[in-house]
């Protein structure tokens, strides 16, 4: 099946404007008759819920955290991109568009990316108006900094807490809507299934995480803004609660899952220190503005970094990519780190680490400037490692950070299931095979503030409100299925804990479907996953009961989905026998070891269609055509 992305006709820069005019509207008096469910309260979800409420729709908002303010967007550090061109350094909508397409290794949909660049400027306006305390120059005007994958300074930031400040802006907009009774908020509530009636999304089944009560919620449309699936790898920079359950269960109900193999391994994270480790901590890529990355030239050089003379250090990013240097994009930086460590030149106890060194920047700018720019990051590093980066270089290593893949959506951000919209990291749309730094915040807010509020109206205007209620037989059927799965998990009473299975599937993915992948390894992984699944469902130990707060049960449902999802991830990685962005197939590389795309065979979006528990999913394709950029080898040299 070939997918239609429903991209409007016309010139690239006129498409969104034309489309906004051509879409149907719901009149102000009729908006209140429609109910929309928004799942997730990160940047995309909170901004969408607040904006839809302001328009007059009835909104039900759900999050599993105790407060919508804690969604994982809060942890984004570095910044948000926009094409304002305040520094007068040559930026434009077209350049942001081009950088994003190229950064994504030509595997994103041109029209979506162009719209994202167009909207980027309005996002900054909106956030400033909300009182987001962006960094400012002494003149009082907004400050910008540079970021990986770009040669202009277009990143707006609030110290190292940009995600937190943007999320609090969106959360506060949501809080206002809750106060005005335009939004009903359901915190500590987890979506466990999607209800599809006559082919259209009409509601969700949720579990109240305090009482265990399973509830049905009906609506005229469902919006998923439930984030990415990086925690499939167990160790990642994601929050512990991040999971694939909402999107995976929507996939099982018929929504297509696109490009699951596009996972981003972030180059600058604190290295793993032991088996007990529960998560990895990111050090913002913005550190690469002033930090220089190096390893010893000599294999197995165990001298402390201060004792290694300049001539015996290899600043490998500066050497290999002179025009971008330490600001090479994430996928390239991560792979380079893996290469030098595989050669035996890694540093630290485990040998899985490289130095990120501020000595030169401190010499040039003084410690106080570095402190002002990065103090919270450096403090965080000190707390975790007990080392002082003003004196000794940081040790960093790549870690799973972001997932470009997600549910397939058309230009309107609607999945192939009518009435199911997918926003932010949960969809697949804008970052292709690799996301540039400071672009996730931009995309989440573009989707929630400025795209969905327009496009959902076009769908609702064609839909009669309130036709399906939560007592429809389909709701009762799916509610029963959800309850059955919970009872099954609780009744196994095996010998291994949920975390134990999670670590196992995570390690398998990291080993065979991590920074470098190949046919043999992926086939081995695919051969092992059914066994892990079988053992999970016969030997997992979930303590407690459903009728109370039960974190072990919450995790069990999520890990069950991670195990199933791991298979889809590997399957997608196997079929895409090319390298592109974060997906590196060792069989497909240039003589210099760079990712080699195969545009004749793989210039498409893979969109997987569920065919039942015992069948392989079907692969659908959306061909990608590039009319405004030239398909080129992605060079940062």
């Amino acid at each position, binding site marked *: 099946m070939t997918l239609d992305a429903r991209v409007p006709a016309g010139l690239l820069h006129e498409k969104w404007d034309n489309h906004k005019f051509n879409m149907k509207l719901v009149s102000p008096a009729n908006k209140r008759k429609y109910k929309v469910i928004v799942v997730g309260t990160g940047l995309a979800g909170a901004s969408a819920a607040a904006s839809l409420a*302001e328009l007059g729709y009835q909104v039900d908002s759900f999050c599993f955290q105790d407060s919508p*303010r804690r969604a994982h967007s809060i942890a984004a550090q570095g910044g948000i991109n926009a094409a304002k061109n305040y520094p007068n350094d040559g930026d434009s909508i077209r350049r942001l568009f081009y950088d994003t397409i190229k950064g994504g290794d030509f595997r994103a949909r041109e029209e979506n990316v162009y719209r994202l660049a167009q909207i980027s400027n309005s996002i900054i*306006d909106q956030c400033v108006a909300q009182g987001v305390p*962006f960094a400012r120059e002494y003149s*009082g005007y907004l400050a910008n900094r540079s970021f990986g994958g770009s040669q202009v300074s277009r990143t707006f930031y609030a*110290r190292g807490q940009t995600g937190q400040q943007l999320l609090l802006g969106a959360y506060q907009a949501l809080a206002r809507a809750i106060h005005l009774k335009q939004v009903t908020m359901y915190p500590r509530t987890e979506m466990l299934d999607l209800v599809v009636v006559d082919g259209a999304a009409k509601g969700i089944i949720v579990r109240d995480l305090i009482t265990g009560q399973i509830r049905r919620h009906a609506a005229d449309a469902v919006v998923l803004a439930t984030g990415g699936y990086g925690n499939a790898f167990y160790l990642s920079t994601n929050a512990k609660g991040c999971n694939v359950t909402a999107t995976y269960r929507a996939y099982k109900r018929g929504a297509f899952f696109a490009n699951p193999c596009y996972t981003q391994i972030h180059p600058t994270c604190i290295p793993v220190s032991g088996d007990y480790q529960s998560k990895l901590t990111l050090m913002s890529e913005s550190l690469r503005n002033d930090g220089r990355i190096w390893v010893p030239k000599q294999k197995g050089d165990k001298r402390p970094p201060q004792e290694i003379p300049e001539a015996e250090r290899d600043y490998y990013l500066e050497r290999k990519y002179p025009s971008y240097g330490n600001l090479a994009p994430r996928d390239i930086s991560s792979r380079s780190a893996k290469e030098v460590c595989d050669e035996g030149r890694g540093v630290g106890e485990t040998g899985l680490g490289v130095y990120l060194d501020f000595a030169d920047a401190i010499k040039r700018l003084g410690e106080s400037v570095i402190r002002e720019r990065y103090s919270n990051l450096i403090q965080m590093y000190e707390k975790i490692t007990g080392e002082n980066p003003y004196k000794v270089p940081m040790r960093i290593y790549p870690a799973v950070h972001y997932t470009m893949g997600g549910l397939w959506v058309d230009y309107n951000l609607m999945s192939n299931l009518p009435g199911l919209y997918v926003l932010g990291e949960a969809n697949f749309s804008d970052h292709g095979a690799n996301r540039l730094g400071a672009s996730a915040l931009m995309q989440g807010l573009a989707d929630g503030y400025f795209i969905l509020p327009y496009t959902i109206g076009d769908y609702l205007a064609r839909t009669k409100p309130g036709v399906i209620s939560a007592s429809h037989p389909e709701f009762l059927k799916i509610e029963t299925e959800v309850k059955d799965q919970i009872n099954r998990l609780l009744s196994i009473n095996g010998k291994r804990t949920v975390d134990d299975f999670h670590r196992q599937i995570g390690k398998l993915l990291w080993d065979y479907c991590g920074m470098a992948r190949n046919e043999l390894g992926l086939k081995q992984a695919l051969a092992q996953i059914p066994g892990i699944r079988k053992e999970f469902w016969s030997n997992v130990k979930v303590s407690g009961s459903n009728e109370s707060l039960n974190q072990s049960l919450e995790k069990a449902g999520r890990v069950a989905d991670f195990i199933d999802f791991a298979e889809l991830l590997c399957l997608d990685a196997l079929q895409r026998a090319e390298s592109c962005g974060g997906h590196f197939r060792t069989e497909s590389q240039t003589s210099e070891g760079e990712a080699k795309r195969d545009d004749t065979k793989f210039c498409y979006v893979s969109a997987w269609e569920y065919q039942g528990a015992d069948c392989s999913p079907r692969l659908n394709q959306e061909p990608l055509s590039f009319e405004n950029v030239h398909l080129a080898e992605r060079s940062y040299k």
Partner: protein
Amino acid sequence: MDLKLKVWRQKDSASKGKFEIYNAPNINPHMSFLEMLDVINEDLIHANQDPIAFDHDCREGICGACSLTVDGKPHGPEKGTTACQLHMRHFKHGNTITVEPWRAKAFPVIKDLIVDRSAFDRIIESGGYVSVNTGSAPEANMSPVPKHAADSAMDSAACIGCGACVAACPNASGMLFVAAKVSQLALLPQGQVEREKRVLSMVRTMDDENFGNCTNHYECEAACPKEISVGFIAKMNREYLRASLCDSGSAGNTKDAVN
């Protein structure tokens, strides 16, 4: 190192809680406090006991979910550190560590170490925002903000809403939390239109939610993982007085002030 833990266990909000003692042998000093609890929980599950429930999510000190009182101190002994960033290297072999939930009337216990902090959300809902609809914002650089004001606003905006300030205060006051948001928005030009209504409404909600008053113990600042200054409480008090004297925010109007 080997440790003993004295942990508050409470089945649900209706039940009475009590301390239980657990052994924590072979604890690696590089572990975080929460990773140490993970290990104990794995053992409890294997021993057919209910694992210890505690709130946590990002585990990098920014989401504000974790909320443990360690040896009587919210987030434990280290300055400017959330419990998730507290590492075991700060404890010694043979220590007995007491772990409790936040203790405050406004934060009822839900289970074990998990409390209900929704009172904070209701305070924000009552006015902790600028009422700007999506789409109506002017060009961002239209209103310059002096750098010192922007920096100060960021200092207060760094609050993660964890509630350690309340747990540390002998009066269980929520003033540092409320002051942080009031100050951030009062310092910025965008917050001026609703400045008086905001502080009156948020303070009223704070009082309605059973938080105590500030009597200058400064325990909140000492416990705050983001080291937010009590100076902001002084600022809020000035804002409150100023608003009470202003016509636009006279006390009689506060109930619907922000609508």
